[in-house]
């Protein structure tokens, strides 16, 4: 995983059947994202941001064209191989946090490590590190219900980052947060991007988020209409 280009799409098309016709969500998207980027997919609702995240995250396959993520061709991966790619190399951050309510903060963060088969000692150490990155060491034994929205999203970031993935995909991560918490979350991710060289790819239409992006890829009707690096 030393190659600079982390993500490469070539003539990516994603179409869905809608009733008796076809809805094309992504039209010939050609994109290259390098390791360590802090980039955002922006655009109005229905522009194809989430669909592109889905395909890059190996949750979906392209209708035509190709997508290579960390040297893996998404279109040829089996379900199991795709799951393995996500498990090993990709972290996800959702708008609604999606923490497991019956587990503590530490256990939520620990969960991806269980899937990786890490030893108990390794897990403990990695969870401590992840909680330290997001400033929640003192909340390790709390349940998600005891946390604020901002804290919950920081736990979600720790969960996504704990396995030190090469790529983190975040879909509207600040949509449920107030301005103060949004900035704090973005600062945290910016710091992790710098310290761990993790690539972050956001889907957002939030101006606050866009301020932090070092590269903004604008989508409209499934096409890349602008790609600018700050």
């Amino acid at each position, binding site marked *: 995983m030393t190659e600079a280009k982390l993500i490469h799409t070539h003539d990516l098309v994603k179409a869905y059947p809608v009733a008796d016709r076809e809805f094309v969500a992504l039209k010939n998207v050609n994109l290259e994202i390098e390791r360590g980027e802090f980039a955002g997919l922006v655009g109005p609702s229905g522009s194809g941001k*989430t669909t592109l*995240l*889905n395909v890059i*995250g190996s*949750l*979906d396959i392209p209708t035509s064209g190709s997508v290579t993520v960390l040297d893996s061709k998404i279109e040829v991966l089996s*379900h*199991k191989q*795709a*799951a*393995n*790619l*996500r*498990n*090993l190399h*990709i*972290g*996800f951050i*959702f*708008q*609604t946090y*999606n923490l*497991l309510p*019956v*587990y503590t903060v530490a*256990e939520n963060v620990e*969960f*991806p490590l*269980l*899937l990786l088969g890490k030893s108990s000692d390794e897990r403990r150490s990695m969870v401590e590190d992840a909680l330290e990155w997001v400033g929640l060491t003192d909340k390790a034994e709390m349940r998600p219900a005891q946390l604020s929205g901002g804290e919950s999203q920081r736990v979600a970031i720790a*969960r*996504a980052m704990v396995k030190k993935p090469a790529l983190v995909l975040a*879909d*509207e991560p600040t949509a449920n947060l107030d301005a103060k918490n949004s900035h704090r979350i973005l600062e945290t991710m910016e710091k992790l991007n710098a310290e761990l060289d993790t690539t972050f790819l956001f889907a957002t239409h939030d101006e606050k988020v866009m301020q932090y992006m070092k590269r903004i890829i604008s989508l409209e009707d499934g096409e890349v209409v602008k790609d600018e690096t700050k």
Partner: protein
Amino acid sequence: MIKFLLDGILRDRSRSLFPVLTVFIGTAITVLMAGYIGGVMPDMIRMSAHLDAGHVKVTSQGYFEDRTQMPLDMALDDAEEIIVQLEDQFPDMMWKARTRFGGLLDIPDENGETRAQTTVSAQAADLITPGSTELDYLKIRSSVRNGSLPTDPFDIVISENMADAYGLDIGDMVTLMTSTINGSMSFQNFRVAGTVVFGVAALDKGGAIFADIEGARMVLNMNGGSTEILGFFKDDEYTGERAQIVTDWINTNLSVEGDPYSPIAFRFEDVNEFAAMMQWAGAFIFIISGVFIAIMFIVLWNSGLMNGLRRYGEIGLRLAIGEAKGHVYRSMLVEATLIGTIGTILGTALGVFFVYLLQEYGLDISGMGVTDTGNGIYYPDVIRGKVIPACFYVGFIPGIIAPFLGALVSGRGIYKRQTASLFKELET
């Protein structure tokens, strides 16, 4: 991972409480049933053998064919000689002659004139020989309500119902009119030594009397004979295999084919409907396990579907972050097995506790009128369970299988989940 799942089960009561309760109740009932059968069947076999069938029953071939008519003329007239042979051949058994016969009992007034007459059904056995087990096997010793046990060949004990109905007191003399094995009429005076209440309808019915075998032989003119010889294992533990050895020997060495007066032997389970009942009892644990597997499977299947809906987000998240569908499915099965194990351990503990109570205190069902099935099968008045080894493991059959099957079926939905929809699903 198992610890992670177990923590989830223990903390999320809505996930675990209902399935655990279902397994707990199902398992407890299964264990209770196993303990009930384990206790009642041996008691039922013991009681029916003592009262009626013996562990091995020997009659003449002709008597057995017409046994419902109790034909005295087909009695074994050399019963005592056969008993000597059998005692010699099978030292681990004891052999008892019994005779059933009917007659008319004449009850006199104070002047010796007939005051009343009633038909009676008599059971004759060795009631007066010191050390005879018959007083216990026929439950007479424990059932005497008034008077005493017989001490003379011409003493009888009668049912309390009969004594009440005819105003008979202890020490009263009555005359039994019957026919001998040769068909001639016979009269004999008997003294009422005692009255009995068995708590078993068939034995307490109005016309039941119990006489000593020697007195009956004199009345029936069947010296040394009897209608039946009952063999009992001295340890009082019946098994079909042991009894088969005995009946095979008798039927090979004493029976003459085609001779209606020659003896023929039957095992306990070959008399009346015992064989079917014993087979049923043997299969009962499997039947009850099967029934509870089916019931709990349906309940837990539905519960699993509901849980799948409730945990839709959790499962979606797990798929999104890279857990393979097969792994999620297997973890559901492991979770179901853990739930089954917890429920089974708790249910087994409760079931064994109830069986223990049933074993120690019993349940008196004499008032329910179900202790006699009317076909020679007797249930004890007080049913008692028994904590048998099966009580400790039988619950694990339905307790583990049912939740596993429930999760196996309900969890298939995981494979229908479209990962492409996860972002949308997880953000609503």
